[in-house]
C-alpha cells in the first residue's frame, strides 16, 4: 500500500517539496507544470518504461512545457475534466441559460459554495469577469477578477477544498449551488440527489492533470509501476464510471457509450471538451503568488 500525503492544494505540495519533502510521485495540473519543472525537483519520465503509454491520448501529452529530452516527458497525463457549477435542480431556479452568474446570484446568498483554492476559483472568476486567459496576467485582469471575487464573497457560505463538505451541503440543501469538479456531481447523482453539472454559457474551466516523479524519488521502479497502473484501462474505467473524470487512456472510453460520456461532460476526443471550455494556461511563479495572496485576502474579507 503506498503512503499518501494529501495537501490542501498542489501549491502547498510544491512548497513542501521545496522545503525538502521527498516523495516518489506527485500530481500537478497542466497550469502548474512549467513552474514545477523549472524548480528542478523532478525527473524526466522515460515513456518506454510505461506499457500503457501507447494508448495515451496524444493531445493531452502535448501540453506546454511537457516535452523533455528525446521523447521523454515531465508529466504523464492521467486525468482531465472541468470545474463548473453543480446545482440542485429542485432548489435552484435557473434564469435563462446555465451560467457562471449562478454563483453570483444574490437570491441564493449564503447558499452558495466554492472551492477554496485559487487554482480553480480565480480562473472561474476570470471567466465570469470576461477576462481572456491570454491576458490573465495583466494588472487590469487582476483588478477585474478581484472585483468579481469581492462581489461574490458575501454570498459564499463556505470556501473549501474538501469536496465531501460541498457534496454533503448540496445533498442536504444547505447549498443550492457550488463550484465543483466533475466528481461531485456524479457522486451526488449516483445517490439520487437531483443535481446537475452545469454547462455554463461562458464555458467551463478545463484542465489536465498528471503524475510527475521526484528527482530523488527513493523508489523509482515503484513510481513507474504506479504510473503505469494509473494509465491502465482498468483505472480509466474506474475514473470515468465512478468519478466522472476524463482519463488519459483512449481505450478506457470503450466501455462507455457516447451518450453516457456526454452526460458526464466527457468525450473520446478530449480536446473537443478542453477547447470548448477555458483551458488553463501556465503562469509564472510571480503571478501564482500574487494571485494566491490576493485571493486569500478577498476570502478573509479584504
Amino acid at each position, binding site marked *: 500500500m503506498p503512503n499518501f500525503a494529501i495537501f*490542501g492544494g498542489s501549491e502547498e505540495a510544491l512548497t*513542501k517539496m521545496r522545503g525538502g519533502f521527498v516523495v516518489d510521485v506527485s500530481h500537478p495540473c497542466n497550469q502548474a507544470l512549467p513552474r514545477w519543472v523549472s524548480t528542478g525537483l523532478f525527473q524526466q519520465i522515460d515513456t518506454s518504461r510505461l506499457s500503457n503509454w501507447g494508448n495515451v491520448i496524444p493531445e493531452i501529452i502535448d501540453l506546454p512545457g511537457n516535452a523533455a529530452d528525446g521523447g521523454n516527458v515531465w508529466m504523464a497525463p492521467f486525468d482531465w475534466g472541468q470545474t463548473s457549477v453543480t446545482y440542485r435542480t429542485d432548489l435552484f431556479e435557473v434564469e435563462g441559460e446555465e451560467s457562471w452568474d449562478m454563483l453570483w446570484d444574490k437570491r441564493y446568498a449564503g447558499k452558495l459554495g466554492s472551492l477554496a483554492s485559487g487554482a480553480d476559483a480565480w480562473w472561474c472568476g476570470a471567466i465570469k469577469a470576461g477576462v481572456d486567459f491570454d491576458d490573465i496576467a495583466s494588472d487590469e485582469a487582476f483588478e477585474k477578477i478581484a472585483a468579481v471575487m469581492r462581489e461574490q464573497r458575501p454570498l459564499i457560505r463556505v470556501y473549501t477544498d474538501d469536496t465531501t463538505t460541498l457534496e454533503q451541503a448540496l445533498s*442536504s440543501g444547505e447549498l443550492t449551488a457550488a463550484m465543483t469538479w466533475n466528481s461531485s456531481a456524479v457522486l451526488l447523482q449516483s445517490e439520487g440527489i437531483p443535481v446537475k453539472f452545469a454547462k455554463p454559457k461562458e464555458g467551463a474551466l478545463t484542465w489536465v492533470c498528471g503524475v510527475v516523479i521526484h528527482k530523488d524519488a527513493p523508489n523509482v521502479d515503484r513510481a513507474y509501476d504506479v504510473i503505469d497502473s494509473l494509465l491502465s484501462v482498468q483505472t480509466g474505467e474506474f475514473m470515468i464510471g465512478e468519478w466522472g473524470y476524463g482519463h488519459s487512456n483512449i481505450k478506457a472510453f470503450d466501455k462507455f457509450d457516447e451518450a453516457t460520456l456526454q452526460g458526464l461532460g466527457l468525450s473520446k476526443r478530449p480536446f473537443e471538451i478542453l477547447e470548448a471550455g477555458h483551458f488553463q494556461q501556465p503562469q509564472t511563479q510571480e503571478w501564482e503568488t500574487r494571485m494566491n495572496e490576493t485571493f486569500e485576502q478577498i476570502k478573509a474579507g479584504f
Partner: protein
Amino acid sequence: MTETSVQTSAAEPAAKPVSRLERLLYRSEALRGYLLMSPTLLIMTIGIIVPFLILVTMSLWTRDGFSFDATLTIANYLRVWNEPIFGALLRRSFWISGVATVATVVLCYPMAYYVAFHVHRNKMMWIILMTLPFWTSYLLRVFAWKVILGYEGVINSGLQGLGMIEEPLSFLLYSKSAVIITLAHAWAAFAILPLYVSLEKIDKSLLEAATDLGDGPVARFWRITFPLSMPGIIAASFLIFIPTTGDYITPALLGGPDGAMIGNFIQLQFGAVNNWPMGATLSIVLMLWIAAIALVFLFITRQAERRVS
C-alpha cells in the same frame, strides 16, 4: 492535565560562602546542577533559540520568486502595520480566543468548585471523568462539533423536531460562534484542572472563620474563595488563551469565511501563498502581541489581588 507550577522558586536562599572550602563546594554544586540541566537546556536551545533567531532573520527577508532575497529590511513589518487585513485578523483571533477563554473559565469554575467542595468520595473518579474526553483526537472532537452544529446537525434536527424552527439555522456553523463553542469545549480540561487544584488548596478553616464572622455564602465566596482561586484562574486563562490564538484547524473546519484567524494566514504563507518571510513576520508579530497581552493581564490581576488583600 497540567499542574503548572511555573513558579520559579525564585527566592533562593542567598548562599554566602564563608570559607574557601565552602566556596569551592558551592561552586561545584552549581557546576553539578548545570551539568544535570545541560541536556534539557541544550534541547531547548536547539529547539527554541536557534529556530527563533532564524525566524527573526527570515522575517527581515523578502520573497523572491521561489527563493528569498536576504537583504535585511523591515518591509514585511511595514506591510503588517499598514495593511488593515493583518490587524483585523489579529484582533479577530484575540477576540475569538478571548471569548473562548472567558467562556471556558466561567463554565468550568462551578464544575471545579463542585468537585473541590461538594464531592467527598471518589474525587479522583470525578477528575478522571472530566478529563477522559480529552483522550480522544482533537481533530475528531472538532469534527464532531461540525456534525452537531451542521445544517442537518443535532441542534437543527432537534429544534426542527420540536417544531421550534422551520428552516435549519445556518448561523450555527461557519461562524465565529462555532469556533468559540468548539474551542471552549476542546480546551475545557485545561481550565478544570488548574481551577480544581487552586480551589482544593484553599484552607477550609478560612471559610469557617468567615462564616463565624457572619458572612453569608455569597460574601464568603467573593471575599475568600474567589481571590484564593485566582492563581488557578490565571493559569487556566493562559493555558487556553495562548494556544488557541494560534489555532488554525478549528477556524479552517468551522469558521467559514468570517471565522478565519491569524493562524490560518500564517499557515497559508507557508503553503499556498508561499511567502515564508511574511509567515515569519506574522509569527513574530503574533508572539509579541501575546506577550504584551499576557503582561497586561498579569499586571491587572496582580493589582486586583493587591487591592483585595
